[in-house]
């Protein structure tokens, strides 16, 4: 039964990916601009290519990228390519392959986002639960208000404030980048420390806001759970407050949070575009921005496809994990 359900989920997953990928293919075709012309016009402004040359070049590039083929053929080629994770060449950074561009940016973003998401989920959930548990204490009421304020501020705004005070004024942190311009990336301690040093401010700006979001959600759930009959019974059983809080309260209140967390993971690939831009962080966000401004279709396709796959995978993850933490949905 469980195997059957997993198989069905995986089939759904493939169907979702196919449908989204198809949309992903056709939507940009509606845009009125031609990427090749766009790129060449840019080129023409900096170097001196004539209009004639542009026309010839455009034709050559169209052929090179297969843009002269009929739409249905391009669609099937596209499906074949993405199934093998081959996104072709980037138009804006020709002749780099899109796969290499994404491969270079993805670890930066994943490292930053997964760590900050997990850390802020853990902290936010516990703080929110405790704020509900001690609703009557003035301190916790103050904490709740502060969290609510932070949860309402966008990531990048916090980022700008942090840069101003801690980097520009204080000088304790670098203002931008994933590592300093002068060092050579490599697997050694000094470089790892440098990466960590550079990632702290972006991480902090994401964490501050998302801790607030997690805490507010958890606080609401925990207040509801505290009104449940089993909480009254747990107290009447003379259980230690710690057990009532964790095993009875948090254990039940966290269930919807886990769903949100999994959906959150679906967004990690592009989760903090603006933060990456503010901090000049060499991740997926920056790559996405660049490729959009330059109408670099292959790269956009590639990023969006990775995004679709991660969202679909994280939804599969919810379906697989939820029965493990909530016995009521095991059927």
């Amino acid at each position, binding site marked *: 039964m469980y195997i059957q359900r997993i198989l069905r989920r995986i089939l759904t997953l493939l169907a979702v990916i196919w449908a989204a990928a198809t949309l992903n293919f056709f939507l940009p075709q509606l845009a009125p601009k031609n990427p090749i012309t766009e790129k060449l016009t840019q080129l023409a402004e900096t170097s001196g290519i004539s209009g004639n040359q542009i026309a010839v070049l455009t034709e050559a590039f169209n052929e090179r990228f297969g843009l002269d083929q009929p739409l249905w053929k391009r669609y099937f080629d596209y499906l074949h390519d993405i199934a093998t994770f081959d996104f072709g060449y980037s138009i804006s950074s020709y002749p780099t392959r899109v796969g290499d561009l994404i491969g270079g940016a993805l670890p930066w973003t994943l490292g930053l986002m997964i760590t900050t998401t997990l850390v802020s989920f853990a902290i936010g959930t516990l703080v929110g639960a405790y704020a509900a548990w001690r609703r*009557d204490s003035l301190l916790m009421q103050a904490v709740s208000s502060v969290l609510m304020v932070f949860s309402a501020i966008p990531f990048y705004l916090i980022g700008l404030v942090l840069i101003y005070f801690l980097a520009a004024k204080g000088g304790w942190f670098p203002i931008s980048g994933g590592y300093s311009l002068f060092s050579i990336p490599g697997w050694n301690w000094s470089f790892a420390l440098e990466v960590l040093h550079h990632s702290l401010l972006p991480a902090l700006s994401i964490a501050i806001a998302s801790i607030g979001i997690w805490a507010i959600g958890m606080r609401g759930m925990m207040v509801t759970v505290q009104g*449940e*009959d*089993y909480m*009254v*019974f*747990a*107290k*009447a*059983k*003379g*259980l*230690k*407050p710690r*057990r009532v809080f964790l*095993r*009875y309260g948090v*254990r*039940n209140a966290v*269930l919807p949070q886990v769903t949100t967390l999994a959906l959150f993971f679906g967004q990690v690939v592009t989760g903090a575009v603006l933060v990456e831009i503010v901090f000049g962080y060499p991740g997926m966000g920056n790559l996405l921005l660049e490729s959009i401004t330059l109408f670099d279709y292959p790269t956009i396709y590639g990023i969006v496809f990775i995004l679709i796959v991660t969202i679909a995978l994280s939804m599969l993850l919810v379906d697989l994990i939820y029965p493990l*933490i*909530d*016995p*009521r949905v095991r059927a």
Partner: protein
Amino acid sequence: MTLLEVRDLCIDYFTSTRVIHAVRGVSFDVAPGERVALVGESGSGKTTTALALMQMIEPPGKIVGGTAKLNGTDLLALRGDAVRASRLANVAYIPQGAMNSLNPVLRLREQILDGLVDHGQRLDRKAADALVAGALKGVGLSPDLARAYPHELSGGMKQRACIAIAIAMKPDLVIADEPTSALDVITQKQVMATLIAAQEEIGCGLLLIGHDMGLMAQATNRVIVLQHGLIAEDAPVGRIFTDPQHAYSRMLIDSVPTLGKRAETAAPAVIAKPEAASLMEFDKVSKTFGGGLFGNDAVRALDTCSFRLADEHPQIISVVGQSGSGKTTLARMVLGFETPSTGEIRYRGKPMAAMRAEERRAYRREVQAIFQDPYGSFNPFYKVDRALSLPLANFGLTTQGGSARSRMEEACEAVGLDAGEVLGRFPHELSGGQRQRLMVARALMIGPRMLVADEPVSMVDASLRMTILGNLQRLKDRFSISVIYITHDLATAYHVSDYVLVLHKGRIVEAGLPGDVIERPEHPYTRSLVDAIPWPDPNRHWGTGAPDRAGWDARQIIRGQSAGFVLNAAG
């Protein structure tokens, strides 16, 4: 010698505008091994008193005075960790909401053991297994259930599990707060028998809280009647039922319906003519849930049945049975919320499946529902007037404020409410009984021909039940409204209905006039149901034996027909 000595207990609730004296100087004793009833209507302070013994009064409530000595130790003077330590070990509490009292994500085993662990017991795996198995067996549950989660248990099993958890440390005093209020009579009797057996086994005192005098007569030695936070009467069970001293005790006792005193209505000897116009007709209707494409096990919720409710003889038809008997499925089909799996339902001769939009609208207007929960039926943000006038607006019946108002007043008057007192108020300002009567009034607003009432009085105080049901009876005569009364309470069905259907596992096992079916039941299942009614008479004990389930599947018994209601034996 006394086990528990409560003296001058006072509990106040400090709301923002005033102080409510919930419990005002209550004093009583409980002897070792004694079972004492704490009886009163909602708001009488009975649960507050019980929670005070556990120091579980939540703000804005506060214990403002008094002592409660258990074996010489004042429970109210305990401070800090001693409060927690005395719970379960000395005073145990069995909560009211059996359905939701267990943590849904933990196995029973853990929920039995965690209390012991937090009271300093160290058990190795083997000892723990043995203890859990013993605790479960002690309340009549299979030891295999140790690994079960709460949602895998029935209501009765959950309440047994709560009992097992509460008595695991053999406390000196057990407080049971309406432990059976959500259970049907057969399950109620079995759970009470389990609770009493366990209590006698460990020899503790039992404080049984409730509002059902019948149950108290069967289960306790002494009854304390609370009213407005004061003790109205405190007497042995043998005396209070024969010679109540306080008018309030007498009222509580008299409000419990008993058999034999039924006011017979006009002799229902006339058999409805088959050609008479029918209001609602079930033609070989059955309902099966599940099955189909995904291969889940199909559940037969209602076996094939056929009946016809005539138009000109309004009737109150009671449908009785335990939970899972199919009575709610039947009600939902009458209301059109479910469609039959086989057969046809006809309203005024028109098949429901073939109704056009405006016919369906007329049907929706004429067939109204009254639900179980008078607390959840109202939107708390609106005055009750809105709930009453909404049906009028929905059916486009009136637009003038004045005529709506007069209709509301009429409807209130019809259900015995003072319109001036209830209209213009918010739901939370009204009592459960008032709200439930308002729900009846709401249904009346648009001139229905039929009411479907699913357990309309199970959540209101016992003393109000007969009043509300009496109201339904008068409405039937005055407005010619037929009523389908769904309940597990045979005693009320006996008094209000013209015809009774007894359902068991989706099958009508016995049907007939209430005088026959409930006073002289013939089917073994009906007999078990009637035997489980707690009579408000300690001398008429309901027995301790488990019901004889062997005959429950015996064949159908139909005894007599009623004017206007024809049941087809053939199905």
